[in-house]
């Protein structure tokens, strides 16, 4: 292997830059060629050149190897990821799998990454023992890979030592090693690529593919990490300056020029695919090392600024750089690879470069590491063993790669980087300028203030449920759901809190209730809406922002301080939240709740309904019209901004929903272990028969055809990222992956740069994490997958997501990333008279009408029709139906009083009577639409619209609206009336007072007086005070307890005020007041109220006098006046003749009857009772069992 590289460098260095550039253009891939056959791939594979395909991996590994010392052994550099050095990770494939499972953050998914490794290993049985043995021997399995890298180093240093082969090499690649490298491609037809034995897949190709697991190490976050935070958008676009021009002449440059003139180009172009094949291997090995299941321990002690820590960091000095020529040469090579997307992941490489730029480490080449490997390696020349060299290299590379579209914050950090400033003042200057002109800022979206899903009568009220019971049970379920959510929010971060243990049973009880009442669909909708509500934002759903920012903090600081908070937060959060450039699919933040909920519920019904709900929403969002604006005026800008926002929201929601859908769809098939080949075959045979829940293939094809894949691919990627081990081998998903592959390989010049980058990023990530993509161990899927792996890894996906989603939208609109497609809606006439042909003609005319009009016209008309139709129904409900219901109420009230009224029959009768009038709804509906439709259309269409167009548009809108409204009304009006009347009736029956005779005229008699200030005492207060008086009167009371007469008068005055102001009066209060006052009157006439005359206590001796000046008369007069003038409700004065009250009277001495007589007169005088009534009441008194009074 290493020989290849030497040859390349020494003899045919054209690989380095120009060659790669050129052959890219020769790609035969056409995105339009959807019907690509698998065989195409084989042809390319057959013609591969092992030599070239090895180049890029070699280069990358060489760099990693060379820099491993500086990046990992520096004094303050965090430790390597456990899985590269920790003893526990040195296991066989299956052990490794288990190990990953435990160390991962999201257990469910982390196995997949390691599982793929496992499959890769098992597919190469020869490699396995060797690997194990080597590990045990203290040396790395990747020794051969290192060997290669070492060789590279040697060759660069022109120190050929001739013993660059290793025994382990042949272990993994016995077949290949038998074949001379050059001849590997010469008789292609003889190679059976489909035969695993004869042509071991990539994984088999080596020990060295395992190797990078130790080298590409995403986790060492140096002290300067905040400076190289992943919040950036990389560009692989080379700077305008020719890379070659940057190289000064020198020995190695001569070699390069020699290569450039060499004739390897054709070979390279043939082998492009093969090269990608190799990189696929690479990505597998990377995956091992990048397993985010083993994140770096967060280091809280890291300072945010470089100067602050400079005493810890070796000061990089440009003058101390050695091997400049070689470094420049490597930088050019490396940059070219990045520029042409030949590296597995450009983001990963940028990450690596930034690591180098910010590396700590000692400036001396050697430190205490006396590892065997190091001793071995020290034989070779180490180009990167000093910080100076690393920084020099990094700056060189950055000089090529940068920068125009990096995120502003990132640019700032780079511009402020002292190392760049000292190593390349020109780069520094360009960064500074780029920073000043950049507007590409990444901002956090603020979390929504409302966190619950609002209750919408249209979907949530009683009429949406089959029974009262179902409705009421769902009411409870909603509350329970939020209770669980709150409990989770409050507690899930506490140690020892376990979702399943605490909430599991509650959730399952809830599921049982839902099943009992068939409420799953309602709950699924709530669940899905809540999911979007809480997780759609880039924060909650973001991959790098694990959690939403603390709402309390946000509230506390207010929006003014939010930007400061954000910056602060970034400092704290970002270094910790780096989870490796290719995190496995995970459910960060609130998503965790929803995932755990699904798992704990374990309900087939719920899952099914949830999938239905998710599919529907996904289709809805995916089909959303993203408008291509007519760039005619200044308004377009505004629209464009809106569209960007809208696109962002839609995209993020889609990705979220798709992730959960994928989770649910593949959940039943999920296995911890990679299935054996036999199991897999039978599973594939079995599952090939079933249809996918959501036809992502169709959607993907549509999106490509309609040029809106920028919206569709990102969510399909989320969906597919959760595939189980088997799914990728199914015919259906194979096609999906194949199509996605084409997207990556396509050179779609139309697509805007950031759009493309997003697609590359998400696809790269997908192929990185989709575990059951062990395609190299199963030749049948090789053509599908392997090319994808070239572009794997999507680091900082969350950051990218934020950034790209927002930028991509606008660009997409301009460059055809998505184009609006209108689904024609046929407007059918309501009128049944027109014949079919006439109607058809009308439809055609209508289509024709819209055809030549701007799309906005159609949208407006459709929108107006939809809204007016809907409003029409609401209006009819509120007017006609309400009116009918009111009438029904009156009718029912009359009839229900009749004895033995059969309520059901009564209801039926009344409703039937009303149905006829309900027919008016259609007429009124038509009127409504005819009136409102044109109004709305006129307001919404441009002022300049010609009269003819306007009229037609109005007519169509009215027609559509009428159709919608009347269609609904004619079908539902009767049921609606019945439902409303029934509801009113049952309400009526529940309120007992309403049915009592004489009390049905409850409404207030009048309004407040004109100048009412509504400041009268509350009825409750008056009742309370009267109650106190009654209480004293009825006793028991203390000896000296009296009611002040003046105060009582005053109370009655206030009573009058209270009754006059109708604002706070309600029927029950008024009735109660009436009753209380009658009671009070009764007690007054029986002299039961211990009145005091102001200051003077009543003297028992002067009873005669008291009678004469009895203040009670005044009080009674007041009462009579209040009853007569102020009450809006009939006062039950006849209660005074009740047994109880007459009983009071009966106990008093004769003279006090004067008061009673006074009262009787008063009642008649005030027309509160007629004389006849009084007489009859008195007569009935005789029938009372008079006690001892009869004496």
């Amino acid at each position: 292997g290493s020989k290849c590289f030497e040859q390349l460098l020494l003899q045919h260095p054209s690989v380095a830059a120009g060659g790669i550039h050129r052959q890219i253009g020769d790609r035969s891939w056409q995105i339009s060629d959807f019907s690509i056959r698998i065989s195409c791939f084989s042809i390319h594979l057959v013609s591969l050149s092992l030599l070239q395909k090895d180049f890029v991996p070699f280069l990358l590994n060489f760099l990693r190897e060379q820099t491993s010392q500086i990046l990992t052994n520096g004094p303050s550099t965090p430790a390597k990821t456990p899985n590269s050095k920790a003893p526990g990770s040195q296991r066989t494939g299956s052990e490794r799998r288990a190990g990953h499972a435990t160390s991962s953050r999201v257990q469910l998914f982390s196995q997949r990454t390691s599982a793929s490794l496992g499959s890769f290993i098992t597919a190469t049985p020869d490699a396995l023992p060797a690997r194990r043995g080597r590990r045990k021997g203290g040396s790395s399995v990747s020794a051969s890979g290192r060997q290669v890298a070492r060789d590279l180093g040697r060759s660069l240093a022109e120190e050929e030592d001739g013993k660059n082969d290793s025994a382990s090499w042949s272990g993994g690649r016995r077949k290949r090693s038998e074949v001379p490298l050059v001849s590997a491609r010469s008789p292609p037809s003889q190679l059976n690529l489909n035969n695993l034995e004869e042509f071991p897949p990539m994984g088999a190709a080596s020990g060295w593919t395992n190797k990078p697991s130790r080298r590409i190490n995403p986790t060492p976050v140096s002290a300067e990490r905040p400076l190289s935070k992943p919040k950036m958008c990389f560009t692989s676009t080379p700077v305008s300056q020719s890379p070659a021009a940057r190289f000064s002449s020198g020995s190695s440059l001569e070699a390069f020029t020699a290569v450039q003139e060499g004739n390897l180009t054709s070979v390279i172009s043939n082998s492009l695919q093969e090269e990608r094949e190799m990189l696929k291997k690479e990505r597998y090995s990377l995956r091992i090392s990048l397993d985010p299941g083993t994140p770096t321990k967060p280091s809280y002690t890291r300072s945010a600024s470089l100067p602050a820590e400079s005493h810890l960091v070796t000061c990089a000095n440009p003058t101390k750089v050695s091997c400049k020529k070689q470094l420049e040469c490597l930088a050019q090579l490396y940059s070219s690879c990045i520029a042409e997307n030949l590296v597995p992941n450009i983001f990963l490489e940028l990450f690596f470069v930034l690591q180098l730029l910010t590396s700590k480490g000692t400036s001396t080449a050697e430190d205490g590491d006396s590892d065997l490997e190091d001793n071995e390696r020290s034989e070779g020349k180490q180009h990167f063993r000093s910080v100076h060299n690393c920084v020099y290299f990094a700056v060189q590379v950055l000089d090529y790669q940068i920068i125009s579209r990096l995120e502003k914050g990132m640019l700032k950090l780079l511009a402020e980087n002292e190392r760049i400033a000292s190593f390349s003042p020109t780069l520094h200057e360009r960064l500074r300028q780029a920073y000043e002109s950049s507007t590409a800022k990444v901002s956090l979206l603020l979390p929504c203030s409302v966190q619950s899903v609002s209750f919408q009568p249209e979907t949530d009220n009683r009429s949406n449920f089959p029974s009262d019971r179902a409705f009421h049970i769902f009411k409870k379920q909603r509350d329970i759901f939020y209770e669980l959510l709150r409990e989770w929010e409050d507690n899930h971060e506490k140690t020892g809190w376990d979702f399943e243990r605490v909430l599991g049973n509650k959730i399952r009880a809830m599921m049982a209730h839902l099943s009992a009442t068939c409420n799953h669909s309602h709950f699924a909708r709530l669940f899905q809406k809540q999911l979007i509500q809480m997780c759609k934002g880039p924060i909650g759903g973001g991959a790098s922002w694990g959690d939403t920012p603390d709402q309390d903090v946000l509230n506390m600081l207010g929006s003014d301080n939010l930007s400061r908070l954000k910056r602060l937060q970034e400092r704290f959060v970002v270094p910790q939240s780096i989870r490796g450039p290719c995190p496995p699919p995970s459910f960060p933040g609130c998503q965790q709740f929803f995932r755990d909920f699904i798992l704990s519920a374990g309900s087939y019904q719920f899952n099914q309904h949830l999938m239905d709900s998710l599919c529907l929403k996904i289709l809805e969002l995916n089909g959303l019209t993203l408008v291509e604006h007519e760039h005619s005026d200044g308004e377009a800008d505004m629209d464009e901004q809106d569209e960007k926002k809208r696109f962002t929201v839609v995209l993020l929601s889609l990705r979220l929903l798709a992730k959960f859908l994928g989770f649910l769809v593949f959940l039943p098939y999920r296995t911890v272990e990679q299935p054996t080949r036999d199991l897999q075959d039978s599973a594939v045979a079995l599952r090939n028969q079933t249809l996918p829940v959501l036809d992502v293939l169709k959607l993907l094809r549509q999106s490509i055809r309609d040029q809106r894949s920028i919206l569709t691919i990102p969510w399909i990627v989320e969906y597919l990222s959760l595939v189980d081990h088997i799914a990728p081998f199914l015919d259906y998903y194979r096609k999906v992956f194949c199509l996605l592959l084409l997207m990556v390989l396509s050179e779609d010049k139309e697509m805007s740069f950031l759009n493309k980058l997003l697609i590359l990023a998400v696809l790269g990530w997908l192929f990185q994490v989709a575990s059951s993509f062990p395609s190299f161990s199963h030749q049948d899927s090789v053509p599908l997958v392997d090319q994808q792996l070239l572009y794997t890894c999507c680091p900082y996906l969350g950051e990218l997501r934020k950034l790209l989603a927002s930028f991509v939208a606008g660009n997409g609109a301009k460059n055809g990333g998505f184009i609006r497609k209108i689904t024609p809606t046929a407007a059918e006439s309501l009128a049944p008279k027109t014949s079919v042909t006439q109607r058809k003609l009308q439809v055609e005319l209508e289509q024709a009408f819209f055809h030549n009009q701007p799309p906005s016209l159609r949208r407006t008309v459709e929108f107006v029709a939809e809204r007016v139709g809907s409003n029409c129904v609401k209006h009819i409900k509120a007017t006609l139906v309400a009116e009918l219901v009111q009438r029904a109420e009156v009718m029912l009230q009359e009839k229900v009083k009749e004895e033995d009224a059969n309520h059901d029959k009564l209801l039926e009768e009344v409703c039937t009577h009303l149905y006829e009038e309900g027919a008016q709804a259609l007429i009124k509906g038509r009127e409504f639409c005819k009136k409102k439709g044109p109004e709305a259309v006129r307001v919404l269409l441009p002022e300049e619209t010609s009269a003819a167009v306007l009229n037609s548009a109005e007519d169509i809108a009215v027609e559509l609206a009428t159709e919608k409204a009347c269609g609904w009304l004619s079908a539902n009006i009767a049921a609606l009336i019945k439902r409303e009347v029934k509801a009113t009736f049952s309400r009526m029956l529940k309120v007992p007072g309403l049915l009592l005779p004489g009390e049905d005229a409850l409404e207030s008699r009048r309004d407040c007086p004109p100048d009412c200030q509504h400041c009268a005492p509350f009825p409750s207060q008056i009742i309370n005070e009267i109650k106190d008086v009654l209480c004293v009167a009825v006793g028991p009371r203390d000896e000296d307890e009296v009611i002040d007469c003046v105060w009582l008068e005053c109370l009655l005055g206030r009573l009058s005020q209270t009754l006059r102001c109708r604002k706070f009066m309600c029927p029950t209060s008024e009735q109660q007041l009436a009753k209380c006052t009658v009671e009070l009157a009764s007690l007054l006439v029986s002299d039961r109220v211990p009145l005091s005359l102001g200051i003077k206590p009543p003297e028992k001796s002067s009873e005669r006098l008291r009678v004469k000046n009895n203040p009670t008369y005044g009080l009674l007069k007041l009462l009579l006046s209040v009853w007569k003038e102020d009450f809006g409700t009939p006062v039950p004065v006849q209660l005074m003749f009740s047994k109880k009250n007459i009983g009071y009277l009966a106990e008093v001495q004769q003279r006090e009857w004067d008061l009673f007589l006074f009262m009787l007169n008063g009642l008649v005088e005030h027309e509160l009772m007629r004389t006849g009534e009084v007489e009859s009441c008195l007569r009935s008194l005789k029938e009372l069992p008079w006690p001892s009074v009869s004496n």
Partner: protein
Amino acid sequence: MKLTKAQYDEIAQFLGHVQPTRQSLRKLKEKFPSQSQSTLLSIFSQEYQKQIKRTHAKHHTAEAIETYYQRYLNGVMKNAAAPILLELANEVDFAPSLMARIVLERFLQEKEQAIPSKTLINSMLRDPSQIPDGVLANQVYQCTVNDCCYGPLVDCIKHFINNSSYSLCIAEDQLRAKGYDKTPDFILEVPVAVEGHIIHWIESKASFGDESSHQAYLQDQFWSYWNRFGPGLVIYWYGFIEELDCHRERGILLKDCFPTDIVTLRHSMAQR
């Protein structure tokens, strides 16, 4: 009026086992002159209700009922005008209104030879004139009018206060008509901010917000409203324990009066 937990506990402790009479209330007022009468009454009432809930069952055993009824009969035989029932209720630590109900029920049962309907009992308690025994009618009336925690008058007062806000806003009936399954006293169609917190609904409570009632309301009502309409405001007209106002950030705001610091959304349309 906001009370601290400590203040509240002091009052609750004082209330211990007092009878729900105006005499007790007077003592309470003397003891805590700085608290408003309505707050004290509300706390009194709620504390008493708690006590009654605890002891309710023991007063409703067949044995107890029989004892009470016999004591009533014996009492009125001796002196019909004396407050027999009221004193009996006070003696056995039971609400006078409820005592009246027990005896009335027992009385009717004997008279009619059947268990009387609830509606009839309620109706008679509301209007003792309907009671076919003058003495009992007086006794019952005396009990209900003297009970400051239970009884038809108290119910009416509570009902009024609980419903008084309806006239200020969208009636609950209207919301129910739309089919809302749980409805606060009112919903703001255009949300406002109170003391910097967005609110979508207001619930009015004519009671003092103590721990147990607030927890119950949270469980049965406030969170349900939150679940449907988002954050909202609860007004405890008779005050509440300050410490309970701890869900502000999450979206449940407590006040003891109508808020003054209200910020409304300004429509750009309206300004034109």
